[in-house]
């Protein structure tokens, strides 16, 4: 009964203080908590967005959901048309395509560099990868085009001196220009640039593609062979399920999932996580200090009142409870406000104006689990930050509280 009475009085005092107290102080406290909560959410969302951007870039522009390559000792996958047909028919496969490396160097005027040139089937390639949709100049390859080439921005340069890779690029190449490709056997062949794409991903922006028809014209022995087969998963199918579905089609091949490929950048992800944890601790410390100061200042102004409340018989538990309820309610409203601003304003804004990271455009990724974790942590921080000064005040002598000594 005593506990219930304490809770009732605490809730009563907290409610009246929140509703009728200093609105400016309450509003500022709420806004402060909202800003802190946004800062707590922002970095993890950005890091998740960066990691997701890398994964998406890898799967949509370079490796697909499953990369199949020749087994140990082999250079090519033979009978690739039949193999692709079987792969496409496998469970969980949305699309499949292949590439064959036919060139090793590209030159334009006095500029040249070692870049791989791959032969593709434009239609199936576009079904697996997004590069064909990311043209910044010109057009995509036509399947019957035997003289055209598609270049990534990091090869073409396209007079964009802001490119990181500009110094090593062909610098001034645009659609309609002719480049010379050094073929696998050492012969050179001219190709007319049809289009230039840009994925904002270094691993795929240095690509060059000609059609399988062009490869057949220049290297007839390459017909119906491939160096790589790429598989796009149907919605809801994991890479592991894909591996299981296609493993039995042809023995001796090597399979790599995006997870295995991104393992190479795990150091980056770990660093992001470390930064994230440091920033989270700092944000929570700021939150704790804010709540502590707000409560402390409030208590300093009300110390005499608290002494009087104790003198007329209000139990310390009820007084402490009222301040804890105030702190939690203020923090809770601030959190809700911050969450609403984050979800309804900041995430959509960043989605429309993504950050330009080296690995591509990065949007914020909202993770409900981490958000719930942060809500609980922030509420606990608010609770303990309010508890310390309140407890100190209610445990001092009544006269000291009243006199302010």
């Amino acid at each position, binding site marked *: 009964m005593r506990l219930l009475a304490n809770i009732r009085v605490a809730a009563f005092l907290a409610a009246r203080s929140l509703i009728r107290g200093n609105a400016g102080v309450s509003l500022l406290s709420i806004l402060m908590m909202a800003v802190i909560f946004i800062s707590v959410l922002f970095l993890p969302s950005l890091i998740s967005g960066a990691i997701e951007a890398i994964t998406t870039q890898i799967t949509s522009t370079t490796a697909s959901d499953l990369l199949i390559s020749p087994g140990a000792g082999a250079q090519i996958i033979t009978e690739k048309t039949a193999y692709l047909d079987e792969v496409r028919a496998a469970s969980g496969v949305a699309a499949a395509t292949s590439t064959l490396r036919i060139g090793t160097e590209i030159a334009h005027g006095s500029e040249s560099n070692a870049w791989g040139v791959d032969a593709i089937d434009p239609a199936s390639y576009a079904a697996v990868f997004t590069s064909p949709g990311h043209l910044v100049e010109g057009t995509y390859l036509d399947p019957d085009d035997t003289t055209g080439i598609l270049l990534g921005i990091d090869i073409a340069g396209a007079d964009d001196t802001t490119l990181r890779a500009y110094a090593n690029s062909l610098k001034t190449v645009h659609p309609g220009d002719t480049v010379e490709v050094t073929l696998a056997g050492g012969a050179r062949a001219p190709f007319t640039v049809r289009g230039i794409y840009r994925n904002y991903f270094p691993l795929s922006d240095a690509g060059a593609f000609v059609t399988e028809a062009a490869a057949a014209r220049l290297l007839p022995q390459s017909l119906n062979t491939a160096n790589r087969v790429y598989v796009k998963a149907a919605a809801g199918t994991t890479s592991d399920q894909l591996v299981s579905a296609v493993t039995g089609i042809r023995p001796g091949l090597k399979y790599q999932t995006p997870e295995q490929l991104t393992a190479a950048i795990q150091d980056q992800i770990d660093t992001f996580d470390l930064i994230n944890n440091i920033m989270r601790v700092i944000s929570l410390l700021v939150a704790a200090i804010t709540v502590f100061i707000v409560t402390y200042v409030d208590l300093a102004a009300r110390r005499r009142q608290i002494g009087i409340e104790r*003198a007329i018989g209000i139990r310390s538990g009820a007084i402490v409870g009222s301040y804890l309820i105030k702190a939690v309610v203020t923090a809770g409203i601030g959190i809700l406000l911050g969450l609403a601003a984050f979800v309804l304003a900041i995430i959509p804004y960043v989605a429309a104006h993504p950050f330009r990271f080296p690995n591509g455009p990065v949007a914020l990724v909202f993770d409900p689990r981490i958000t719930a974790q942060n809500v609980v942590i922030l509420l606990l921080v608010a609770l303990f930050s309010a508890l310390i000064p309140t407890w100190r005040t209610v445990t001092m002598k009544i006269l000291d509280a009243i006199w302010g000594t």
Partner: protein
Amino acid sequence: MNDPIIVVENVSKIYRLGAVSVPALFEVTLEIASGEMVCIMGKSGSGKSTLLRQLSLIDRPSAGRILLHGQEVTHLAERHRTLLRLSSLGYVFQEYALIPELTAWENVFLPAMMLGEARAAAYRRRAHDLLEQVGLGERARHRPRELSGGEQQRVAIARALINSPTIVFADEPTANLDSIAGATVMQTLTRLNRDTGVTIVFVSHDPDDGAYASRLVHLGDGRLIDLGPAADTPAADTPAADTPAADTPAAGGAS
């Protein structure tokens, strides 16, 4: 004289300010009977408020003992003292010590909430009645800042009475009021003493206030110098101007 409701035996109080000791009370001994309205008088620094705080369990004496209702309370644990303050004692502060966010009615009702749902429900009406008794029935929904000093002090008196205490302590209840408001507050206290029989112990340095008391207790330099005559009847609600208690020679009560 009725049975003593307050017994003070050799109570001393020394405040310690760092390494400095400041004596405030020296071996004060007195008894106050149930239903009395006692005024503790003395000059500034005489120890009258210090004595009131010892009696009302807001502070603890350095030596001696205090009995309320025959129960030794000097060394009670703080939670028991809190319960006694809540259920048996009322306290009116010198300054209008109301909670600014609460209405007059809520300020009065608050101590009753601490007694639990059952008592609180029964005391809702009582809070209104008490405000009526102190002449503020129409001001129940007003917050302290909307009340005058005298009105706030009368709300504080109503709050002190909400849990039906047997003793009400008041520390210079008129000190911050003009003479008219002060007289109203004193008349309110006197009427409550007379009508309900509640024992009232108040502190004042103003002889006009002392005139409302049924007995005056004089303190000087922390020592009891005059106990005043014990009264069998409650005080009148007008000052006894012709025979002020302050002028009455000390008689009885001290041991």
